[in-house]
């Protein structure tokens, strides 16, 4: 559905000037090319949901803008359902829906109903289909509660639900979401995720999402494409990513009062004493199992409580971003 090969985007920026009349001299200062996307290649199958991750400034949004046809790349190729987005803008527009968390595609001064009707007419959606889709969207997004409210008066959560309805009204094959849950409360986030998951499940909509909210990824995506400094550093499934960057799990033990915490150990597990008095036994699941670690820990001391920590995507991403900064 989406084929991207050797995609490069460079922006020309003036060299910074200092000293007298620097603001004027800046006008003819030599330009330097800043590469925002540097040879990105990947392919997405129909019906896939892909998380496109990266730190701020890594090139995620620029890639999405090239895939949607908004920005023309410096070099490389993109085909979405066989169309080059920037060369076939109008035809391509019927195939895609886009939601930007930071900007609305709805008309600020018009009620949501009028915005959606305008989109209906722009994309030539028939009246019966329109009515059916509004009913369908309302089941999860509950947009009928605020259809007659101008966009400028909607809360962020309501506006995003309206934006998502607008993006899916013409039933596009591909949905791009650029930080769709930024600034939303947990209820609004969940409504958006439920809606996206349902569109994917029922209509096989291909979804590509950029986000800094790892819950979005964990709930929606099986596949991750991660970029850093404009280059793809990982393309694969979520479980493999976690194994690669956080290859250990952790059993956290709370000893009973009076028990000797120093005795709590397990073979093939690193022992850490936490400031709250708990003991962490960190182990590689390929060398030992959680059951073995728990059995050894409980055999040497009386235990008040214990739990197993799974590696979190958030920790993986933090690790990768920190590496990138270094």
């Amino acid at each position, binding site marked *: 559905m989406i084929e991207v090969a050797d995609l490069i985007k460079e922006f020309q920026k003036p060299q910074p000037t200092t000293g007298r009349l620097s603001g004027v001299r800046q006008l003819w200062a030599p330009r330097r090319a800043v590469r925002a996307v540097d040879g990105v290649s990947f392919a997405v199958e129909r019906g896939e949901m892909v998380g496109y991750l990266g730190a701020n400034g890594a090139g995620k949004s620029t890639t999405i803008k090239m895939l949607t*046809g*908004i920005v023309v790349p410096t070099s490389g190729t993109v085909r979405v359902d066989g169309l080059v987005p920037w060369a076939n*803008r109008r035809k391509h527009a019927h195939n895609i829906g886009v939601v930007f968390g930071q900007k609305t595609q709805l008309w600020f001064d018009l009620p949501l109903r009028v915005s959606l009707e305008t989109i209906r007419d722009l994309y030539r959606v028939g009246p019966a289909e329109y009515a059916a889709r509004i009913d369908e969207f309302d089941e999860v997004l509950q947009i009928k509660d605020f259809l007659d409210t101008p966009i400028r008066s909607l809360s962020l959560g309501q506006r995003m639900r309206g934006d998502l309805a607008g993006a899916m009204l013409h039933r596009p094959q591909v949905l791009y979401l650029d930080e769709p849950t930024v600034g939303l409360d947990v209820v609004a986030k969940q409504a958006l995720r439920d809606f996206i998951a349902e569109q994917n499940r029922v209509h096989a909509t291909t979804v590509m999402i950029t986000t800094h909210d790892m819950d979005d990824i964990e709930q929606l995506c099986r596949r991750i494409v991660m970029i850093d400094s404009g280059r793809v550093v990982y393309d694969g499934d979520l479980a493999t990513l976690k194994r690669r960057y956080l290859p250990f799990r952790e059993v956290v033990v709370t000893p009973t009062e009076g028990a000797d915490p120093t005795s709590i150990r397990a073979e093939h597990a690193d022992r850490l004493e936490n400031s709250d008095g708990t003991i962490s036994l960190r182990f590689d699941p390929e060398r030992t199992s959680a059951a073995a670690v728990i059995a050894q820990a409980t055999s040497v001391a009386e235990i008040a409580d214990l739990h197993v920590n799974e590696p979190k995507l958030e920790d993986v991403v933090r690790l990768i971003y920190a590496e990138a900064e270094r």
Partner: protein
Amino acid sequence: MFFRANVALSMVSVALQTVLLVTVWRAVYTNRPAVAGISESDAVSYAVIAMLLWHVALPWQLSSIPERVREGTIATDLIRPVGVVGQSLLQSFGAIVGAIPGVVVGLVLALALGGLTPPATGAAFLGFLLTAALGWLLAALLNLAVSMVAFWTTDTRGPFYVYRAIASFASGALVPLWFVPASLRPYLDALPFGLQVFAPLQLWQGQEPLGGLGGVITAQLGWLAASTAIVALVTWRALRKVVINGG
């Protein structure tokens, strides 16, 4: 509510301008039967209709493109199944519809004050309508071409001030071109702006514009073809230059 109030206020503004124009031009003609061969009634009528054309066609005001480029919301226009140029022209057309109540107020008031001479003939009126419509389209395309500068400069105020200063004067909307020194006229006639206001108004008043009705329409069509080519070229270049501000 805000928009209805805005339309009502624009009607008040047009009414005020109509009264002022009629009063000032009559004062200019006090004790003079004609200036540069133009009678008082023709000059007053010209001033009122030129102001109404300005109001209805919003000439020399840029489209929303510069603001949308600056804020980055142009991104949402570029993912529509209608081109950016088409969206902008439709928006300009919508602005005309919004300006119609003001025009009605201006015409009624000018008639009541005796400041509006009717078109010289029915044919003159049809000629006026046709050339005013083509003139509006020409203004809309030129506005669009200047608006596109935003893709390079982000801030379009500088080019806009230059454009508006030249266009508003050279069209005859500020001062009828009868009163412009003869030495300047060839330069103004070489520009497209006189075809937007002055030539249609000459037809209204039964005067022979440069080249007659056929000459005006031919010149307008020529300029429309040239400005369409310019807009297409500038748009083609601009869409390769797009940078979306604000992430």
